[in-house]
């Protein structure tokens, strides 16, 4: 049995658990806890260790989706989660400009772990206050080759699109490796 792995990361409450839940064939094995600290009391639960979702591709291949915990005190999990991943998705809550700096920090940290491709999901695009993906691109100072995709984590089609775009980027990376081998 072969396993492939992708990591879904992003700031607190950006929609990671929702995103994995939209495509996972098992209920997300999530380690949610009720939130007690008042600063983060904007929703009922938060992910404390990680989220875990699965998509069976065939008898011999599964894709695992890992979501990182949102709160900073679980940063130590990131390094472990990122090992051996095919690529990663950075989720951003497009309606919360106060989290963009944090998103940038997370993105840079993950870039440091591995040179795998990644995409940014501009999540919650269904909400009125959402910043446009292209504005987020500038604020997050994304390099031109990094894709930023509109996303609504509660809408499966947009989640599929984000994953497919990430996989395209991975294929492009393989193309590059291939042509490097030939030269």
């Amino acid at each position, binding site marked *: *049995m*072969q*396993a*492939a*792995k992708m990591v879904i990361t992003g700031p607190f409450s950006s929609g990671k658990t929702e995103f994995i839940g939209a*495509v996972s064939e098992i209920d997300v*094995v999530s380690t949610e806890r009720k939130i007690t600290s008042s600063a983060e009391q904007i929703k009922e639960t938060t992910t404390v260790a*990680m989220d*875990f979702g699965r*998509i*069976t*591709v*065939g008898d011999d*291949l*599964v*894709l*695992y989706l890992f979501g990182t915990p949102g709160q900073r005190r679980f940063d130590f999990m990131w390094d*472990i*989660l990122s*090992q*051996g*991943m*095919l690529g990663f998705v950075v989720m951003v809550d497009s*309606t919360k*400009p*106060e989290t*963009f*700096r944090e998103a940038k920090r997370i993105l840079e940290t993950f*870039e*440091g*772990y*591995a*040179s795998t491709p990644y995409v940014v999901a501009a999540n919650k695009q269904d909400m*009125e*206050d*959402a*910043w*446009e993906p*292209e*504005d987020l691109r*500038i*604020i997050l*100072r994304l*390099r031109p080759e990094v894709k930023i995709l509109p996303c609504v984590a509660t809408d*499966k089609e947009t989640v*599929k699109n984000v*994953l*497919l775009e990430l*996989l*395209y980027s*991975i*294929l492009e990376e*393989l193309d590059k*490796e*291939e042509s490097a*081998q030939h030269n």
Partner: protein
Amino acid sequence: MALKGNLRDFSTTQLLNLINLARKTGTLTIQSNGEVANMSFQEGKLIYAHLGAERENYLAQFLHNAGKLSKEQADIIETRVQGKSDKQIGRLLIQAGHVTQSDIIQSVRQNILNVVYKLFTWVEGLFRFEANQLPPPTLITIPIDLESVIMEGSRRLQEWEILQEELPDLDVSLRFTERPDARLRNINLTVEEWKVISLIDPRNSMRKIAQANNLSDFEIRRIIYGMLQAGLVTLVQQPAKPRQQPIQAGESPRRKRAKAAPPTESLATRRSMVERIMDRIRGL
């Protein structure tokens, strides 16, 4: 769609950089400590800025601020020109020989810049960008390139924290963006900034450049920050940390040991795996 937030989370330079790069048209309103500022942009150029209550006309005041009219002259004009627009007043003043057209352009420009430079000192305040909303056509607007405004604004930056967050690592190096020559031509740089420019090279870290020029950590960060936001330079991507031995995916949750796809597998195998996953996701 919205473009709103709090200056706590963005510097004014960052916002201007966004407007500049995205070539936005519209008006940015910032409210802070009971003061309201409006800045208008057309295709990424600053064309107007105004602080405080809306008035019917501003020109006499602008000309007085710029020393082109005395206080008495400005007051007289203001009482006589009720109901006239700035454009009309400008025309009358030029015809009467009180001021020249270039006096008017310079004073309006100076007033716009004064407002914007004042905004650089605001560290908190709600902002909101209304796309396509522009000042009334009766006002005199002057297009000003944002690159030079951003450089000037970053010279006034006092907040160590912003710079520390934006440029945490002084061991990163820089390179010029495309066509820096065209951009540089429009910007007034200080001697210190030119010295930094002359050392921009992917082989030179910021720390090295600072040492060569005797700049403090704060000073080098401030100069580089301005150049980044003005679109002159970009950070050079650092090589990723050497890959640690990948642990097997699927190992952490307690289930049958699954084999991760190690990078040693042939490209063809990896490609076929990725393609299979894509097919599966399409079918979800």
